């Protein structure tokens, strides 16, 4: 059973002004902001999408050379609003737990939709970053960042195999559920961390909507996560 103690934290609503929006790859964008806010690697925010959605929408936070950023894949009306609007974004943050690895001998693998988080972790922990993308990244992105990129499903599976046989103690994976499950199943030698994408309404532990079945019972992605040990979510066979 999940615990019901109320955390002694403050969640703030920020109005964030877009600084730049650049295409990462097909329908996926990196948005940076003018304002600063305090958060730790692995945490996320809930973004109000005005008339484009009934709930705020969760996005992992990133920091790139000091600037706050999120990456957004257009999955529906809400994410489309976030990418297209020129209004300031109303954002509740920081949410969830900081990711605190046991050591710095790790690596990060992200989908383009989680590039901001990936860049942040890589910079913060000084660890390598791999981007697994369905299609090639845009020129703007590759010219701005030095990225190890694999394209397509086969490329991703080969990357997992390599990482499974690598020197790293742990691998942090953030992307789609399928991508994360594949990582856990295909890297049996490694401690794999995953950042879950459960459906969230509140992001602060109130609604109990973001339940995840773990080996240790029901947990909540927003307050117990969003980062979990992969073997807590998927059994390895």
């Amino acid at each position, binding site marked *: 059973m999940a615990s019901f103690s109320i955390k002694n934290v403050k969640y*703030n609503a920020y109005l964030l002004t877009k600084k730049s929006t650049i295409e990462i790859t097909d329908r996926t964008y990196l948005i940076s902001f003018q304002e600063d806010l305090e958060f730790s690697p692995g945490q996320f925010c809930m973004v109000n999408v005005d008339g484009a959605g*009934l709930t705020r929408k969760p996005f992992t936070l990133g920091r790139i050379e000091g600037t706050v950023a999120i990456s957004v894949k257009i999955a529906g009306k809400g994410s489309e609003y976030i990418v297209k609007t020129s209004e300031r974004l109303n954002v509740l943050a920081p949410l969830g737990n900081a990711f605190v690895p046991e050591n710095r001998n790790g690596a990060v693998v992200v989908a383009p939709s989680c590039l901001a988080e990936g860049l942040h972790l890589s910079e913060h922990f000084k660890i390598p970053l791999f981007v697994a993308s369905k299609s090639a990244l845009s020129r703007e992105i590759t010219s701005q960042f030095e990225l190890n990129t694999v394209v397509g499903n086969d490329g991703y599976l080969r990357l997992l195999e390599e990482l499974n046989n690598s020197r790293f103690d742990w691998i942090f994976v953030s992307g789609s559920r399928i991508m994360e499950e594949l990582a856990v199943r295909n890297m049996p030698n490694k401690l794999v961390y995953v950042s879950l994408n459960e*459906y969230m309404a509140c992001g602060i532990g109130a*609604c109990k909507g973001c*339940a995840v079945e773990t080996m240790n019972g*029901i947990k909540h992605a927003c307050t117990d996560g969003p980062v979990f040990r992969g073997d807590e979510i998927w059994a390895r066979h």
Partner: protein
Amino acid sequence: MGKALNLRTPIVIASGPGGFGEYLNVSSVDWSYVGAYTLKTVTLNPKSGNKPPRMYASKEFLINRIGLENPGFDGLRKMVEDGTIDKLASIVPLILSLGGDSFDEYVEITKLCRPFLDKFIAVEYNFSCPNVHHGGLSIMVDREEWRRLLKAIRTETDAFIIAKLGIESGFVEEMARIVSSEGWDGVTVINTIRGLMVNSEGQTVLGGLSGPALYPIALRAVYEVRKALPDIYIIASGGVYAPEQVREMLRFGANAVSVGSALFHDESVLNEMGKEFSR
């Protein structure tokens, strides 16, 4: 005139969406604009809730099948003993929400809570959760059994007690008549309506619908209950997202108006709603 709650503003946080007080941690809300905070329904035994996925949303509806995940009476007692309830209540008046899986559980939890009921300004009984297999909705299928339950609870406590009614167990004004005739103080109308949506992964989500589309239905329920019972205390619930809707609910007979899913959109709407009533 029936008893009234005398809230500082008629804005109430709905049971469930507000959890066990988590929104008090959100700095953008001025709690002096909120009249009361209803905690999520507590049942005798803890519940871990339904399997995921538990939620989905369309443009006008949110569907949830949380399944009354809650820490049970023991969890609630712990929150009382460790001072959490007092701390919350020092910021905003609290309404306790209780539920059960059977006649006996409703009565039992009422008895158990008696020692600390004075920490709450009212107790709302959830007779209308669509997401549990026993209790909730099904307790109302047998009208006579339900009436006996209302009587039994009324006998157990002098607290301000409110029955939360959905629209599917029978005409809501008829249900409210029964509640009133058993000496209860108020009703909350409505709860979520049972719905089914298939999510983008093709999974069937059977749950309760909340959100904007409920509003005209809830407004009508308030109107009908007020017409039937001029004196009962009414908390309106369903699809309230804007200050005009608060006013309209009050105009058609509500004494207080509860805000649920709208918190997920932007909890600071509470400030806008409460401002005009604040003294």
